[in-house]
Protein backbone atom coordinates (compact mmCIF):
# COMPACT_ATOMS: atom_id res chain seq x y z
CA UNK A 1 0.00 0.00 0.00
CA UNK A 2 1.46 3.40 -0.91
CA UNK A 3 0.81 6.71 0.80
CA UNK A 4 -1.99 7.93 -1.46
CA UNK A 5 -3.94 4.70 -0.95
CA UNK A 6 -3.67 5.19 2.80
CA UNK A 7 -4.72 8.85 2.53
CA UNK A 8 -7.67 7.93 0.33
CA UNK A 9 -8.72 5.25 2.77
CA UNK A 10 -8.52 7.69 5.69
CA UNK A 11 -10.48 10.27 3.70
CA UNK A 12 -13.18 7.73 2.84
CA UNK A 13 -13.54 6.39 6.37
CA UNK A 14 -13.04 9.52 8.49
CA UNK A 15 -14.48 12.29 6.31
CA UNK A 16 -16.88 10.67 3.88
CA UNK A 17 -17.65 7.95 6.45
CA UNK A 18 -18.27 5.24 3.91
CA UNK A 19 -18.71 2.79 6.79
CA UNK A 20 -21.65 4.85 8.04
CA UNK A 21 -23.23 4.94 4.60
CA UNK A 22 -22.97 1.14 4.40
CA UNK A 23 -24.28 0.75 7.94
CA UNK A 24 -27.33 2.95 7.27
CA UNK A 25 -28.05 1.17 3.98
CA UNK A 26 -27.69 -2.22 5.65
CA UNK A 27 -30.03 -1.10 8.44
CA UNK A 28 -32.81 0.02 6.11
CA UNK A 29 -32.60 -2.87 3.66
CA UNK A 30 -31.89 -5.76 6.05
CA UNK A 31 -33.33 -4.72 9.42
CA UNK A 32 -36.30 -2.55 8.37
CA UNK A 33 -36.72 -4.37 5.10
CA UNK A 34 -37.27 -1.52 2.64
CA UNK A 35 -36.50 -2.47 -0.92
CA UNK A 36 -33.35 -0.71 -2.11
CA UNK A 37 -34.82 0.58 -5.39
CA UNK A 38 -37.72 2.49 -3.81
CA UNK A 39 -37.81 6.29 -3.48
CA UNK A 40 -38.35 6.07 0.29
CA UNK A 41 -35.18 4.00 0.63
CA UNK A 42 -32.99 6.56 -1.10
CA UNK A 43 -34.57 9.48 0.80
CA UNK A 44 -34.30 7.73 4.19
CA UNK A 45 -30.74 6.49 3.78
CA UNK A 46 -29.66 9.94 2.57
CA UNK A 47 -31.32 11.61 5.57
CA UNK A 48 -29.91 9.37 8.30
CA UNK A 49 -26.44 9.04 6.81
CA UNK A 50 -26.14 12.82 6.36
CA UNK A 51 -27.56 13.81 9.73
CA UNK A 52 -25.31 11.44 11.66
CA UNK A 53 -22.26 12.29 9.58
CA UNK A 54 -22.75 16.07 9.84
CA UNK A 55 -23.25 16.00 13.61
CA UNK A 56 -20.17 13.82 14.20
CA UNK A 57 -18.00 16.02 11.96
CA UNK A 58 -19.45 19.25 13.32
CA UNK A 59 -18.77 18.33 16.93
CA UNK A 60 -15.15 17.44 16.28
CA UNK A 61 -14.54 20.39 13.96
CA UNK A 62 -16.20 23.11 16.01
CA UNK A 63 -14.21 21.98 19.04
CA UNK A 64 -10.92 22.10 17.15
CA UNK A 65 -11.64 25.39 15.40
CA UNK A 66 -12.85 27.06 18.62
CA UNK A 67 -9.60 26.04 20.28
CA UNK A 68 -7.65 27.69 17.47
CA UNK A 69 -10.00 30.69 17.55
CA UNK A 70 -9.36 31.29 21.24
CA UNK A 71 -5.99 32.65 20.06
CA UNK A 72 -7.62 34.96 17.47
CA UNK A 73 -10.12 37.17 19.26
CA UNK A 74 -11.89 39.96 17.41
CA UNK A 75 -9.86 42.49 19.42
CA UNK A 76 -6.60 40.92 18.27
CA UNK A 77 -7.86 40.86 14.68
CA UNK A 78 -8.56 44.56 14.86
CA UNK A 79 -5.10 45.24 16.27
CA UNK A 80 -3.41 43.26 13.49
CA UNK A 81 -5.53 44.97 10.83
CA UNK A 82 -4.76 48.47 12.03
CA UNK A 83 -1.10 47.88 11.15
CA UNK A 84 -1.71 47.03 7.48
CA UNK A 85 -2.64 49.45 4.70
CA UNK A 86 -4.10 49.23 1.19
CA UNK A 87 -4.95 46.00 -0.62
CA UNK A 88 -2.75 43.89 1.73
CA UNK A 89 -5.14 45.04 4.48
CA UNK A 90 -8.06 43.61 2.49
CA UNK A 91 -6.16 40.35 2.04
CA UNK A 92 -5.28 40.11 5.75
CA UNK A 93 -8.87 41.07 6.63
CA UNK A 94 -10.27 38.30 4.44
CA UNK A 95 -7.84 35.74 5.87
CA UNK A 96 -8.56 36.73 9.46
CA UNK A 97 -12.27 36.53 8.62
CA UNK A 98 -11.85 32.83 8.01
CA UNK A 99 -10.42 32.09 11.48
CA UNK A 100 -12.03 34.70 13.74
CA UNK A 101 -15.16 33.51 15.56
CA UNK A 102 -18.19 34.97 13.84
CA UNK A 103 -21.94 34.72 13.71
CA UNK A 104 -24.20 37.00 11.69
CA UNK A 105 -25.45 38.48 14.98
CA UNK A 106 -21.99 39.94 15.64
CA UNK A 107 -21.71 41.78 12.31
CA UNK A 108 -22.89 45.10 13.80
CA UNK A 109 -20.55 45.13 16.83
CA UNK A 110 -17.68 44.19 14.55
CA UNK A 111 -18.59 46.83 11.99
CA UNK A 112 -18.80 49.55 14.64
CA UNK A 113 -15.72 48.35 16.50
CA UNK A 114 -13.57 48.22 13.36
CA UNK A 115 -14.81 51.56 12.01
CA UNK A 116 -14.22 53.32 15.32
CA UNK A 117 -10.67 51.98 15.41
CA UNK A 118 -10.12 53.84 12.14
CA UNK A 119 -10.06 50.84 9.81
CA UNK A 120 -11.21 51.65 6.25
CA UNK A 121 -14.73 50.29 5.72
CA UNK A 122 -13.46 48.36 2.69
CA UNK A 123 -11.26 46.27 4.99
CA UNK A 124 -14.17 45.72 7.36
CA UNK A 125 -16.30 44.52 4.45
CA UNK A 126 -13.55 42.14 3.30
CA UNK A 127 -13.72 40.66 6.79
CA UNK A 128 -17.53 40.59 6.82
CA UNK A 129 -17.69 38.83 3.44
CA UNK A 130 -15.14 36.11 4.14
CA UNK A 131 -16.21 35.46 7.73
CA UNK A 132 -19.49 33.62 7.12
CA UNK A 133 -18.32 32.24 3.77
CA UNK A 134 -15.19 30.36 4.78
CA UNK A 135 -14.36 28.61 8.03
CA UNK A 136 -12.55 25.45 9.03
CA UNK A 137 -15.66 23.40 9.78
CA UNK A 138 -17.45 24.19 6.53
CA UNK A 139 -14.33 23.57 4.44
CA UNK A 140 -13.77 20.12 5.95
CA UNK A 141 -17.47 19.29 5.49
CA UNK A 142 -17.23 20.45 1.89
CA UNK A 143 -14.21 18.19 1.43
CA UNK A 144 -16.15 15.29 2.95
CA UNK A 145 -18.77 15.64 0.22
CA UNK A 146 -16.97 16.93 -2.88
CA UNK A 147 -13.30 16.16 -2.16
CA UNK A 148 -10.34 18.33 -1.25
CA UNK A 149 -9.78 19.92 -4.68
CA UNK A 150 -13.22 21.51 -4.63
CA UNK A 151 -12.93 22.50 -0.97
CA UNK A 152 -9.63 24.30 -1.52
CA UNK A 153 -10.91 26.00 -4.69
CA UNK A 154 -13.91 27.15 -2.68
CA UNK A 155 -11.64 28.70 -0.03
CA UNK A 156 -9.59 30.41 -2.73
CA UNK A 157 -12.53 31.97 -4.58
CA UNK A 158 -14.19 32.92 -1.29
CA UNK A 159 -11.12 34.87 -0.22
CA UNK A 160 -10.70 36.44 -3.67
CA UNK A 161 -14.36 37.57 -3.58
CA UNK A 162 -13.82 39.13 -0.13
CA UNK A 163 -10.63 40.92 -1.19
CA UNK A 164 -12.13 42.29 -4.42
CA UNK A 165 -15.44 43.23 -2.77
CA UNK A 166 -13.72 45.16 0.03
CA UNK A 167 -11.26 46.83 -2.34
CA UNK A 168 -14.09 48.04 -4.59
CA UNK A 169 -15.93 49.51 -1.59
CA UNK A 170 -12.72 51.37 -0.66
CA UNK A 171 -12.34 52.60 -4.26
CA UNK A 172 -15.90 53.89 -4.35
CA UNK A 173 -15.13 56.02 -1.23
CA UNK A 174 -18.28 54.92 0.59
CA UNK A 175 -17.30 56.26 4.05
CA UNK A 176 -19.95 58.98 3.91
CA UNK A 177 -22.67 56.36 3.69
CA UNK A 178 -21.99 55.08 7.19
CA UNK A 179 -24.47 56.32 9.81
CA UNK A 180 -22.82 59.23 11.60
CA UNK A 181 -23.35 57.94 15.16
CA UNK A 182 -20.86 55.16 14.40
CA UNK A 183 -18.07 57.74 14.50
CA UNK A 184 -19.01 59.04 17.95
CA UNK A 185 -16.57 58.57 20.79
CA UNK A 186 -16.66 55.30 22.72
CA UNK A 187 -17.43 55.55 26.42
CA UNK A 188 -15.26 52.85 27.87
CA UNK A 189 -12.47 51.39 25.80
CA UNK A 190 -10.09 49.52 28.04
CA UNK A 191 -9.59 46.07 26.61
CA UNK A 192 -9.08 42.95 28.61
CA UNK A 193 -5.67 41.36 28.48
CA UNK A 194 -6.41 38.18 30.34
CA UNK A 195 -4.05 35.31 29.69
CA UNK A 196 -6.20 32.26 29.11
CA UNK A 197 -4.95 28.97 30.46
CA UNK A 198 -5.21 25.72 28.47
CA UNK A 199 -8.10 24.79 30.73
CA UNK A 200 -9.87 28.08 29.91
CA UNK A 201 -9.42 27.42 26.21
CA UNK A 202 -10.82 23.90 26.51
CA UNK A 203 -13.80 25.26 28.39
CA UNK A 204 -14.27 28.03 25.82
CA UNK A 205 -14.18 25.45 23.00
CA UNK A 206 -16.76 23.27 24.72
CA UNK A 207 -18.96 26.34 25.31
CA UNK A 208 -18.70 27.27 21.65
CA UNK A 209 -19.50 23.70 20.62
CA UNK A 210 -22.73 23.53 22.62
CA UNK A 211 -23.62 27.07 21.62
CA UNK A 212 -23.17 26.52 17.89
CA UNK A 213 -24.84 23.10 17.89
CA UNK A 214 -27.84 24.61 19.70
CA UNK A 215 -28.01 27.33 17.07
CA UNK A 216 -27.57 25.24 13.93
CA UNK A 217 -29.14 21.84 14.64
CA UNK A 218 -32.49 22.87 13.19
CA UNK A 219 -30.94 24.22 10.00
CA UNK A 220 -29.02 20.98 9.58
CA UNK A 221 -32.17 18.90 10.00
CA UNK A 222 -34.17 21.11 7.62
CA UNK A 223 -31.30 21.18 5.14
CA UNK A 224 -30.84 17.42 5.19
CA UNK A 225 -34.62 16.99 5.00
CA UNK A 226 -34.84 19.11 1.87
CA UNK A 227 -31.78 17.32 0.51
CA UNK A 228 -33.44 13.95 1.15
CA UNK A 229 -36.65 15.06 -0.61
CA UNK A 230 -34.66 16.25 -3.61
CA UNK A 231 -32.66 13.04 -3.51
CA UNK A 232 -35.63 10.72 -3.33
CA UNK A 233 -38.68 12.40 -4.77
CA UNK A 234 -38.06 15.37 -7.04
CA UNK A 235 -37.63 14.18 -10.61
CA UNK A 236 -34.20 14.77 -12.09
CA UNK A 237 -35.83 16.10 -15.26
CA UNK A 238 -37.42 19.00 -13.34
CA UNK A 239 -34.18 19.95 -11.60
CA UNK A 240 -32.31 19.51 -14.85
CA UNK A 241 -34.65 22.00 -16.57
CA UNK A 242 -34.35 24.71 -13.89
CA UNK A 243 -30.79 24.34 -12.67
CA UNK A 244 -29.24 22.03 -15.25
CA UNK A 245 -26.18 22.65 -17.37
CA UNK A 246 -28.26 23.49 -20.44
CA UNK A 247 -30.13 26.32 -18.78
CA UNK A 248 -27.90 29.39 -19.26
CA UNK A 249 -29.58 31.16 -16.33
CA UNK A 250 -29.09 28.33 -13.82
CA UNK A 251 -26.39 30.15 -11.83
CA UNK A 252 -28.38 33.40 -11.74
CA UNK A 253 -31.51 31.56 -10.55
CA UNK A 254 -29.57 29.69 -7.85
CA UNK A 255 -27.98 32.92 -6.58
CA UNK A 256 -31.18 34.98 -6.52
CA UNK A 257 -33.07 32.20 -4.73
CA UNK A 258 -30.25 31.84 -2.20
CA UNK A 259 -29.81 35.48 -1.18
CA UNK A 260 -32.87 36.08 1.05
CA UNK A 261 -32.58 32.64 2.65
CA UNK A 262 -31.20 32.53 6.15
CA UNK A 263 -29.49 29.27 6.91
CA UNK A 264 -26.22 28.06 8.17
CA UNK A 265 -23.65 26.74 5.73
CA UNK A 266 -23.99 23.38 7.49
CA UNK A 267 -27.67 23.31 6.55
CA UNK A 268 -27.05 24.21 2.91
CA UNK A 269 -24.36 21.60 2.29
CA UNK A 270 -26.76 18.62 2.24
CA UNK A 271 -28.99 20.48 -0.25
CA UNK A 272 -25.92 21.13 -2.37
CA UNK A 273 -24.97 17.47 -2.16
CA UNK A 274 -28.40 16.31 -3.30
CA UNK A 275 -28.45 18.79 -6.19
CA UNK A 276 -25.03 17.68 -7.46
CA UNK A 277 -26.13 14.03 -7.28
CA UNK A 278 -29.07 15.02 -9.52
CA UNK A 279 -26.69 16.39 -12.13
CA UNK A 280 -26.67 20.10 -11.32
CA UNK A 281 -23.39 21.82 -12.17
CA UNK A 282 -21.00 22.31 -9.27
CA UNK A 283 -20.72 26.05 -9.98
CA UNK A 284 -24.49 26.44 -9.79
CA UNK A 285 -24.58 24.64 -6.45
CA UNK A 286 -21.66 26.59 -5.00
CA UNK A 287 -23.29 29.86 -6.11
CA UNK A 288 -26.42 28.83 -4.22
CA UNK A 289 -24.42 27.99 -1.09
CA UNK A 290 -22.41 31.18 -1.19
CA UNK A 291 -25.53 33.30 -1.70
CA UNK A 292 -27.26 31.68 1.27
CA UNK A 293 -24.32 32.10 3.63
CA UNK A 294 -22.82 35.44 2.54
CA UNK A 295 -26.06 37.38 2.20
CA UNK A 296 -29.27 36.92 4.10
CA UNK A 297 -32.27 39.09 4.86
CA UNK A 298 -31.75 39.16 8.66
CA UNK A 299 -28.09 40.16 8.40
CA UNK A 300 -28.88 42.86 5.82
CA UNK A 301 -31.62 44.28 8.06
CA UNK A 302 -29.06 44.43 10.89
CA UNK A 303 -26.44 46.09 8.69
CA UNK A 304 -29.02 48.65 7.58
CA UNK A 305 -28.89 50.05 11.12
CA UNK A 306 -25.31 51.19 10.67
CA UNK A 307 -24.96 51.96 6.95
CA UNK A 308 -27.11 53.94 4.53
CA UNK A 309 -29.09 52.26 1.76
CA UNK A 310 -26.65 53.25 -0.97
CA UNK A 311 -23.71 51.43 0.66
CA UNK A 312 -25.91 48.42 1.39
CA UNK A 313 -26.99 48.25 -2.27
CA UNK A 314 -23.36 48.52 -3.44
CA UNK A 315 -22.33 45.75 -1.00
CA UNK A 316 -25.15 43.40 -2.07
CA UNK A 317 -24.53 44.09 -5.79
CA UNK A 318 -20.79 43.43 -5.59
CA UNK A 319 -21.25 40.17 -3.68
CA UNK A 320 -24.10 39.01 -5.94
CA UNK A 321 -22.23 39.69 -9.16
CA UNK A 322 -19.10 38.09 -7.68
CA UNK A 323 -20.99 34.93 -6.73
CA UNK A 324 -22.58 34.66 -10.19
CA UNK A 325 -19.18 35.01 -11.87
CA UNK A 326 -17.70 32.36 -9.55
CA UNK A 327 -20.63 30.06 -10.34
CA UNK A 328 -20.15 30.24 -14.11
CA UNK A 329 -16.38 29.93 -13.67
CA UNK A 330 -16.76 26.71 -11.66
CA UNK A 331 -19.27 25.28 -14.14
CA UNK A 332 -16.75 26.00 -16.86
CA UNK A 333 -13.56 24.71 -15.23
CA UNK A 334 -14.66 21.70 -13.16
CA UNK A 335 -15.49 19.54 -16.21
CA UNK A 336 -12.06 20.48 -17.61
CA UNK A 337 -10.41 19.35 -14.36
CA UNK A 338 -12.30 16.09 -14.55
CA UNK A 339 -14.18 16.62 -11.30
Amino acid at each position, binding site marked *: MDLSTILNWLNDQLLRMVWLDNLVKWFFSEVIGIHSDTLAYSALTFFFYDVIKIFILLSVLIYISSYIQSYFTVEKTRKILSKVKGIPANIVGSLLGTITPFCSC*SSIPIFIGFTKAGLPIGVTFSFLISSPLVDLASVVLLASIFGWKIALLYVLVGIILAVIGGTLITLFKMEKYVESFVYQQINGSVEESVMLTKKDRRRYSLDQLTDILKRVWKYVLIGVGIGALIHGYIPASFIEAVLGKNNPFSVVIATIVGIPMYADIFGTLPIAEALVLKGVGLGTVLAFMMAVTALSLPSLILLKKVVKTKLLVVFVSIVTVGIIIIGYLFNFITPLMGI
Partner: protein
Amino acid sequence: MEIKVLGSGCAKCKHLLQMVEFSVKELALDANVIYVTDMISIAMSGIMNTPGLMINGKIVSTGRVPRLEEIKEMLLKG
Protein backbone atom coordinates in the same frame (compact mmCIF):
# COMPACT_ATOMS: atom_id res chain seq x y z
CA MET B 1 -20.61 50.52 41.61
CA GLU B 2 -22.17 50.00 38.22
CA ILE B 3 -21.95 46.60 36.55
CA LYS B 4 -23.12 46.05 32.98
CA VAL B 5 -23.66 42.67 31.36
CA LEU B 6 -23.93 43.15 27.61
CA GLY B 7 -25.44 40.55 25.33
CA SER B 8 -28.12 40.11 22.71
CA GLY B 9 -30.05 37.60 24.78
CA CYS B 10 -28.02 34.53 23.89
CA ALA B 11 -27.76 31.63 26.35
CA LYS B 12 -24.18 32.50 27.27
CA CYS B 13 -25.14 36.11 28.02
CA LYS B 14 -27.95 35.04 30.37
CA HIS B 15 -25.57 32.62 32.05
CA LEU B 16 -23.07 35.43 32.64
CA LEU B 17 -25.81 37.67 34.05
CA GLN B 18 -26.84 34.95 36.52
CA MET B 19 -23.26 34.41 37.63
CA VAL B 20 -22.70 38.15 38.10
CA GLU B 21 -25.91 38.54 40.11
CA PHE B 22 -24.94 35.52 42.22
CA SER B 23 -21.45 36.92 42.88
CA VAL B 24 -22.79 40.35 43.81
CA LYS B 25 -25.10 38.75 46.36
CA GLU B 26 -22.43 36.46 47.75
CA LEU B 27 -19.83 39.21 48.10
CA ALA B 28 -22.55 41.51 49.48
CA LEU B 29 -21.52 44.30 47.12
CA ASP B 30 -23.41 47.54 46.79
CA ALA B 31 -23.82 47.28 43.05
CA ASN B 32 -26.28 48.11 40.32
CA VAL B 33 -26.40 45.30 37.74
CA ILE B 34 -27.69 46.38 34.31
CA TYR B 35 -28.42 43.98 31.45
CA VAL B 36 -27.90 45.66 28.06
CA THR B 37 -29.45 43.86 25.09
CA ASP B 38 -29.63 46.56 22.40
CA MET B 39 -27.10 45.64 19.72
CA ILE B 40 -26.22 49.25 18.89
CA SER B 41 -25.65 50.23 22.55
CA ILE B 42 -23.52 47.12 23.03
CA ALA B 43 -21.40 47.98 20.01
CA MET B 44 -21.17 51.64 20.97
CA SER B 45 -19.68 50.69 24.33
CA GLY B 46 -16.77 49.19 22.41
CA ILE B 47 -17.71 45.53 22.71
CA MET B 48 -17.34 43.47 19.53
CA ASN B 49 -18.01 40.03 20.85
CA THR B 50 -20.77 39.13 23.31
CA PRO B 51 -21.18 38.42 26.16
CA GLY B 52 -19.38 41.45 27.53
CA LEU B 53 -18.85 42.57 31.11
CA MET B 54 -18.23 46.18 32.15
CA ILE B 55 -17.47 47.45 35.64
CA ASN B 56 -17.76 51.20 36.20
CA GLY B 57 -17.51 51.90 32.48
CA LYS B 58 -14.46 49.69 31.97
CA ILE B 59 -14.57 46.57 29.78
CA VAL B 60 -13.25 43.63 31.77
CA SER B 61 -14.29 40.67 29.63
CA THR B 62 -15.61 39.99 26.13
CA GLY B 63 -16.52 37.00 24.00
CA ARG B 64 -16.59 34.39 26.73
CA VAL B 65 -18.10 33.53 30.08
CA PRO B 66 -15.37 33.84 32.72
CA ARG B 67 -15.16 31.37 35.62
CA LEU B 68 -17.06 32.27 38.78
CA GLU B 69 -13.82 32.92 40.71
CA GLU B 70 -12.66 35.20 37.89
CA ILE B 71 -15.88 37.17 38.02
CA LYS B 72 -15.58 37.61 41.77
CA GLU B 73 -12.00 38.76 41.41
CA MET B 74 -13.02 41.30 38.73
CA LEU B 75 -15.83 42.59 40.92
CA LEU B 76 -13.55 42.99 43.94
CA LYS B 77 -10.94 44.82 41.85
CA GLY B 78 -13.59 47.11 40.34
